[in-house]
């Protein structure tokens, strides 16, 4: 089994930046790759301030952070990933973009390199197809925010080898994460359950059955969930919910996954959630002020 020493993270956006933190913090040499230098610069600033807080909170020493940051480099050139034993891709959620990236990476990386995809909605088998190494492509779905969340859903495509799966699994453990084994299934486990659940809550608002605040109170107090579904959607963004619905419905034709019309109306009206100050709730700078 190939030993994993050097990690590549392709795409340095919200997820990629967090994944690179997880890998580097666990002691791996980590290379962040993004087509955009701005994205890499932003990620570097966020990473430095994240680790500064870790020092403040005495989770890490200044010395440790220095070592971690010196292990973390970045590049806008794909060739910069040539020495990686595993490349985790977190580029745009678009099958063609991911396929094209893996095809090019196949020419750059040595034979043993594993390609892992952080896709939320696409199929691992489809992403792997045409990569030239579909036996060495595996799903590794991190949760947002990756630098804080322990869970990784690990899944295999139809042609993924058992050795690839085992290597990815051990690598998750070596990063101090908690892997769960699942299948190449729309939304894996988490999104498979949460997208329709959230849609049901939206439809309940749409049908006038209850106000968002009443629904959130009910779910939190009855079940001890940390957030109600509508607070969660405001946090994730109505535009993201719309994209998730579109991706899932196309794959599953599950009516519960179909986008509720209210979501489209809210997106059109600019009620995207926290980031625009209005979604199912209104927000001021410091947080919620009413439903």
């Amino acid at each position, binding site marked *: 089994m190939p030993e994993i020493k050097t990690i590549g993270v392709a795409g340095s956006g919200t997820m990629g930046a967090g994944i690179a933190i997880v890998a580097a913090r666990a002691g791996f040499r980590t290379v962040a790759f993004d087509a955009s230098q701005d994205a890499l610069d932003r990620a570097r600033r966020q990473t430095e301030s994240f680790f500064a807080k870790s020092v403040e909170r005495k989770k890490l020493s200044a010395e440790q952070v220095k070592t971690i940051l010196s292990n973390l480099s970045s590049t806008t050139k794909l060739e910069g990933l040539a020495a990686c034993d595993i490349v985790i891709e977190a580029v745009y959620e678009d099958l063609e973009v991911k396929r094209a990236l893996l095809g090019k990476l196949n020419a750059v990386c040595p034979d043993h390199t594993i390609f892992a995809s952080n896709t939320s909605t696409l199929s691992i088998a489809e992403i792997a197809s045409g990569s030239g190494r579909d036996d060495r492509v595996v799903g590794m779905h991190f949760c947002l925010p990756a630098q804080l*969340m322990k869970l990784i859903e690990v899944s295999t495509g139809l042609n993924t080898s058992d050795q690839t799966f085992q290597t990815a699994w051990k690598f998750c453990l070596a990063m101090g994460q*908690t892997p769960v*084994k699942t299948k190449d299934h729309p939304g894996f*486990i988490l999104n498979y359950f*949460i997208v329709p659940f959230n849609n049901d809550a939206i439809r309940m608002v749409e049908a006038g059955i209850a106000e968002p605040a009443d*629904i959130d109170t009910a779910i939190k*107090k009855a*079940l001890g969930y940390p*957030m109600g579904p509508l607070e969660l959607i405001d946090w994730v963004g109505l535009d993201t919910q719309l994209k998730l619905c579109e991706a899932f419905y196309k794959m599953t034709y599950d009516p519960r996954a179909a986008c509720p019309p209210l979501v489209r109306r809210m997106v059109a009206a600019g009620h995207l959630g926290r980031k625009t100050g209005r979604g199912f709730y209104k927000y001021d700078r410091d947080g919620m002020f009413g439903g």
Partner: protein
Amino acid sequence: MAHTIVDTGGSRSFPGPHALLRSAGPGGDVLVLIGTGAGMALAAVEKHESLKAVLIELGTECLGVHTGERRGGEGSNVLGFARFRLGDGPPSDLVELVRQPGTKPESIAAAKTAFESAGLHVAVCMDTPGRIVDRLVRPYYNGALRKLDEGLATADDLDTTLRLGLGYPEGPIALLERTGLAHHHDVTKALHDALADPGFAPARRAQVAKRRQKA
């Protein structure tokens, strides 16, 4: 503002001592009918129209069954309620308070005050099968049971994923085991009968548990 309790026996919401029961007294202007016969007891209450609010503990039925309905204009000082409770687990601190389109705002306010002063949390909803929580969680529980059958992941991995990924205190499989799969069957079956939505159709494992309970 005092409240009065009429206990018809067998209440799922208040199976034992509770602040709401302790703080009750005779002649209150909020009347709380609890127990399996709460709806039937309404007819026997004299001049209930003159009270601030009359609160009927509901099972899986709609409030309209007890009050009657009038082409979307129904609503009075009578509300329904139930404390959310999973199977044999203890009742939660959540009260689902059921209103109708024409329910008096002051009756809703009085009901909320009565429950909240007893330390309970109130969520108001329209008169619909499954109210809020059951309507949202039963398709999710059925889905988890189906995906366990389909081998999406082991029971432990399903539970771990939902606990770590969403911060739920307990995964769906462990929760259903703890609170009773047969009870889940009964609740989701009633919702399936009422709404005919396939998400509520009792999952195979819930049907098995129900059959074994009868046997």
